């Protein structure tokens, strides 16, 4: 498992691995928002948690294509399927690697970009907490979408269509927790729901991902 994780991470960090892709996209979205909605700081402050969550979600979605497609093309997935490691564990590791290369940098970058969007002071902590709790769910659900469409050529659009509704609950609770935190309200209810979703999908989703991947590798 550790070998697979290290392999995926080093592939992502080396040139052409697309490590910075999600982060750059996140940066672009956040920087462009003030140009499109206007520079009023009150308005920016009120939409900042939602924009940051949306940017993180889209950045995750953007990098899902690379999660399995390259490994499918060069046959690595076939080897993984016949390896002694169960495919469920391999999918968990792949989702974890995706989270470390995409989700974690987003979580760390979010407070910096929050400054650009005039996020209220009390909001930073809850923004980071909600993103840290929610982005693993995005990676795991995304891994399912990638496994589902891995056999389809140019399946990126289809994968986005399938993953989009699956992301809705995570986005709602995550953005709601960040918004309540920014407005000095108690964010514990949506935060607990978000944690519940993440725990649930991390526990169950790898089984679904592995099942569809087995079908695709048949």
């Amino acid at each position, binding site marked *: 498992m550790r070998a697979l994780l290290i392999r995926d991470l080093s592939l992502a960090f080396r040139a052409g691995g697309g490590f910075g892709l999600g982060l750059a996209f996140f940066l672009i979205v956040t920087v462009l928002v003030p140009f499109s909605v206007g520079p009023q700081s009150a308005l920016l402050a009120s939409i900042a948690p939602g924009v940051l969550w949306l940017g993180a979600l889209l950045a995750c979605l953007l990098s899902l294509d690379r999660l399995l497609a390259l490994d499918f093309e060069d046959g690595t997935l076939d080897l993984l399927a016949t390896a002694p490691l169960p495919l469920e564990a391999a999918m968990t590791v792949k989702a974890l690697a995706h989270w470390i290369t995409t989700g974690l940098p987003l979580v760390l970058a979010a407070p910096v970009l929050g400054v650009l969007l005039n996020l209220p002071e009390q909001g930073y902590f809850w923004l980071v907490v909600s993103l840290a709790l929610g982005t693993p769910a995005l990676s795991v659900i995304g891994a399912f979408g990638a496994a*589902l469409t891995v056999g389809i050529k140019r399946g990126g659009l289809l994968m986005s*269509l399938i993953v989009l*509704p699956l992301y809705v*609950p995570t986005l*709602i609770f995550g953005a709601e927790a960040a918004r309540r935190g920014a407005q000095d309200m108690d964010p514990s*209810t949506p935060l607990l729901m978000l944690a519940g979703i993440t725990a649930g999908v991390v526990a169950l989703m790898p089984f*679904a991902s592995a099942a*569809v991947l087995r*079908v695709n590798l048949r």
Partner: protein
Amino acid sequence: MSLWSYANPVKFLTLSAKVQPALWVLSGACLCIGLIWGFFFTPDDFRQGSTVKIIYLHVPSALMAINAWFMMLVTSLIWLIRRHHVSALAAKAAAPVGVVMTLIALVTGAIWGQPMWGTWWAWDPRLTSFLILFLFYLGYIALWEAIEDPDTAADLTSVLCLVGSVFAVLSRYAVNFWNQGLHQGASLSLDKEENVADVFYFPLLVAIAGFVLLFLALVLYRTGTEIRLRRARALMAREQRA
């Protein structure tokens, strides 16, 4: 004679050929009676005027939109567990009907909402959940279309249907939490307390029965088409090999 004997396509087709004419006639009759009764022989609502009459299309289609997905869930499970091809094809056949029902519910809702709420669309929990359901249907149908091998497609869409069902329910609660709505609460249920008035209730029941029968007839018809399509493909492949 158990239910499973109809997993045999020939038996299924024989039965559905016998049942279908009755289903078409009954659903046509129910729809005619329900809609004409509803549109022309019920009084206007005290506050909503004649706009209330769109209820005879809106409520049955919304009901069927959800039940079609539920049917797909059950048939997908049967496919995954017992590997009956008819079951997978029935799920495939039901999806386009379901998406049309969802669309009818959304459009009639918008037409009804415009004079009543003053807006075509609001991010109300019920409306939002239906939009999400619509996206699930689109993803499901697109996945069926994108994969060539029929068994692979059946497997993948079945798993998507299972996962999607869980997330559809989750989204329903999430949007409830997220926004309080304009939409009224339940107005149809078996305990009489919260029902609409009887003058609207009975034609509505007839219209719902008509929609249910129409759905059954359409799904049987489309499943038959899918079975024959697959058989034709098999025959063509055999001829090519010979």
